[in-house]
């Protein structure tokens, strides 16, 4: 066994022993505190080991008392996020994250416009495209990587999470999301529900690339 591997294992064992001491002494720190003490590559294994002891501790302490109102709110979040369409549950997630950050749609549009230098008529096209995205009218396959990265930065969320949400298309979602009360209709797999006018200038073309150009757009 290589020396580095032995030393990493010893590190994990030492942290595990430290955690068990803390748990026994009734002063456990939180799991991420312990995870931070070992190399990133070992965290999954340590988390698995620690969770056994944390779980036992939690079971011994009995169920935590939580205000029922909190469960109601959590169910509300889950319900809103269960709305899927041609862009998976990304539209619902964007609306939810925007609400929790107290941002208006216009704030998001402004931030995207600044980031990509979109001005003039492009700005109106951007406003309309973002509206279409948040209301489930665009296809997740049309969204560019650049747009998801920008949304991730604006809403403080991992762009990979947004990308995965956009690709979770509902089984029956060749039509638009149910929450928006629209009739069934064919959705272009990349361009979305509506046919749009061709871009009139560079700024409008940038918007189309972002929202309808596909991952590399």
């Amino acid at each position, binding site marked *: 066994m290589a020396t580095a591997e032995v030393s990493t294992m010893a590190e994990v064992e030492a942290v595990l022993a430290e955690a068990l001491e803390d748990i026994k002494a009734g002063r456990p720190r939180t799991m991420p505190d312990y995870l931070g003490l070992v190399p990133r590559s070992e965290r999954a294994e340590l988390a698995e080991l620690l969770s056994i002891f944390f779980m036992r501790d939690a079971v011994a302490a009995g169920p935590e008392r939580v205000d029922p109102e909190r469960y109601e709110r*959590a169910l509300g979040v889950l319900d809103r996020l269960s709305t899927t369409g041609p862009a998976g549950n990304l539209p619902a*997630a964007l609306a939810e994250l925007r609400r929790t950050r107290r941002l208006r749609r216009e704030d998001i549009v402004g931030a995207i416009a600044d980031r990509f230098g979109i001005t003039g008529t492009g700005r109106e096209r951007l406003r309309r495209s973002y509206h279409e995205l948040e209301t489930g009218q665009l296809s997740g396959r049309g969204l560019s990587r650049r747009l998801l990265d920008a949304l991730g930065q604006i809403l403080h969320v991992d762009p990979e999470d*947004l990308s995965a949400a956009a690709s979770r298309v509902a089984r029956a979602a060749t039509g638009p999301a149910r929450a928006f009360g629209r009739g069934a209709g064919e959705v272009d797999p990349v361009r979305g529900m509506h046919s749009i006018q061709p871009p009139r200038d560079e700024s409008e073309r940038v918007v189309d690339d972002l929202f309808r150009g596909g991952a590399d757009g």
Partner: protein
Amino acid sequence: MNDPLHKLDAQYAALDEPTLMMLFETATRENDADALEPLVRQLVLRAVPVVERTVREFGEPRDLSPSDQALVEDEALTKLVLRLGRGLPLPSIRALAYEIARECAEDPARQPAPAPKVRPVRPTLRVVDSSLHSRARSNGHRGGQHDG
């Protein structure tokens, strides 16, 4: 995911956390979307106490009001749903919930609730006119005495 209640919800609600984690791992490996959706819901509901406690622990010292904390909790739950939806290996739902809730509560970019837009109104006070006082007396008012 459009069914508000999935047929497996009741079944999963009765299971303990290690069993749910095992089922989640299997459903993830097999890319079984039908099972993943109710599993994600169950796991998120199990994480609610962790999210609530963590947001309070890290939100209160940052002067987040109760309504701010409620929004942070909703944000953490949303991010938890998104992360679980990626189907990555998950050693512990509690550890992940803690990590996400802490990040959300400590985010320096979070704006506190705007102060209410109420302008203080300066009261306009006048000295009572002495002629008004004497007029009141002539009308039979005697400063608190009753005629009986």
